[in-house]
């Protein structure tokens, strides 16, 4: 779907956030970008989203460049409009492309249903828990039926129980929606649990060190599966080597 070819990004001030980074994303991939703080994960995600431009290298989209709605983005904070209800927050992407409220509502309801928020349509962000706010944020990203879903440490601010629940639910959503997910995290456990492909990144300058493929089929008991423990060990070892 998208091929990133040897992109580089140097920020004013001389910080080389990305050097010679190449990555191919296929339909229905689930890719985790894993690495310590400052290794350029967010920078790469923003380049893919078109929110920032590379200084070198190129992005090639299979089937033409993306139009608004082709890409969904979930940030570390839910970044909802505090004055708008859950429904209106999810409606926003459709509203921005000029769709009328009544016309959009079936899609909005479906997106909220997918993340388990039926019944909370008219709640304001203040009245929702951190996990529920993140669910609204995911529903907002899904409402345009994106081909590519970009997530930048979406669960980092949540407690562990909520995080596990949202991880499991995200896998369900991904299977149903069939989109490609690029998921930024600095948790080895999270990457190993979620991703089909785990891309290890290292800082100064930010670049991709290695990719590890997973054959786990994540389910409720995956965390108890010896294969999961083995994958975590493999990723930990590879990460330690890459950073040495």
């Amino acid at each position, binding site marked *: 779907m998208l091929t990133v070819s040897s992109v580089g990004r140097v920020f004013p001030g001389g910080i080389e956030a990305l050097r010679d980074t190449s990555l191919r994303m296929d339909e229905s991939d689930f890719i985790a970008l894993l690495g310590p703080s400052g290794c350029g994960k967010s920078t790469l995600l923003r380049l893919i989203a078109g929110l920032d431009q590379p200084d070198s290298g190129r992005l090639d989209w299979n089937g033409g460049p993306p139009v608004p709605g082709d890409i969904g983005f979930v*940030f570390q904070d839910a970044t909802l409009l*505090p004055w708008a209800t859950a429904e209106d927050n999810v409606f926003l992407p459709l509203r*921005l492309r000029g769709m009328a409220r009544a016309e959009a509502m079936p899609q909005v309801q479906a997106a909220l249903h997918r993340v388990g928020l039926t019944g909370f349509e008219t709640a304001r962000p203040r009245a929702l828990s951190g996990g529920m706010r993140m669910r609204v944020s995911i529903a907002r990203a899904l409402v345009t039926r994106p081909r590519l879903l970009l997530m930048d440490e979406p669960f980092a601010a949540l407690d562990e129980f909520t995080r596990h629940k949202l991880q499991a639910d995200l896998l369900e959503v991904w299977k149903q929606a069939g989109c490609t997910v690029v998921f930024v995290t600095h948790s080895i456990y999270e990457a190993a649990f979620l991703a089909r492909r785990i891309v290890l990144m290292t800082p100064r300058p930010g670049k991709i060190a290695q990719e590890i493929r997973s054959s786990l089929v994540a389910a409720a008991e995956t965390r108890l599966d010896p294969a999961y423990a083995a994958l975590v060990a493999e990723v930990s070892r590879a990460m330690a080597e890459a950073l040495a």
Partner: protein
Amino acid sequence: MRWAPALFGLLALALWQGAVWIENVPVYVLPGPLAIVGAFMADPVGLLTALASTLLVTFAALFVAAVLGGAMAVAMSSSRLAQAAIQPWAVALQVTPLPAIAPLIIIWVGNPFVALVVCATIVAFFPLFANTASGLASAPPELDDLFRLYGARRWQTMALLRLPAALPYFLSGLRISGGLALVGAVVAELVAGSGGFASGLAYRILEASFRLEMPRMFAALVLLALAGIVLNFGLGAVGRMILRRRGVA
């Protein structure tokens, strides 16, 4: 606890009245509270009419300052050129002392009411302008990114993100400017009063002081202070109500 301020006030008034009685202070030096109430009761219509005239100037100025300050903040946040052009002038306006320019304005603007409103607007303008401007820029950068990701037009980002984000800032600016507009109106009246065409409360104060009618002067002062308090709390309550209705307070 709720009654503490009222109780304290009453106690202070009683002490004041007592001191005036015991020390036999002449009324033209310091009138007691009873003399002040008496002065008000002697001409309630005249004083309240004067208050109404001052408040009319205050509200007109507050309205103009809200419209101008809001509009200029929006213009500034939508264009770098506007920002470069407007900002220094806004600051210059803010640091210019009103008493220094009020006589000029009164001479230039023929209509006395308009001249007073212009003066009070100059004082009330800046908090509304500056607050709205920082409110327009207050949305987190991720929301800006989100709007860009979905190809939002500039007016859409303004209407759906910047303006709603600026509302609480605008409302607290309105509260600050309410008090300032009253002060501006009074200062302008004081300057204009000597020009001889004022009907407001400040002119009553000036007039009473010329005639050494201290109780009447104090009565006008008390009215002014009460009006300022009511204005401040009233604007605060309106702001809170609006924000509560929008579910953000």
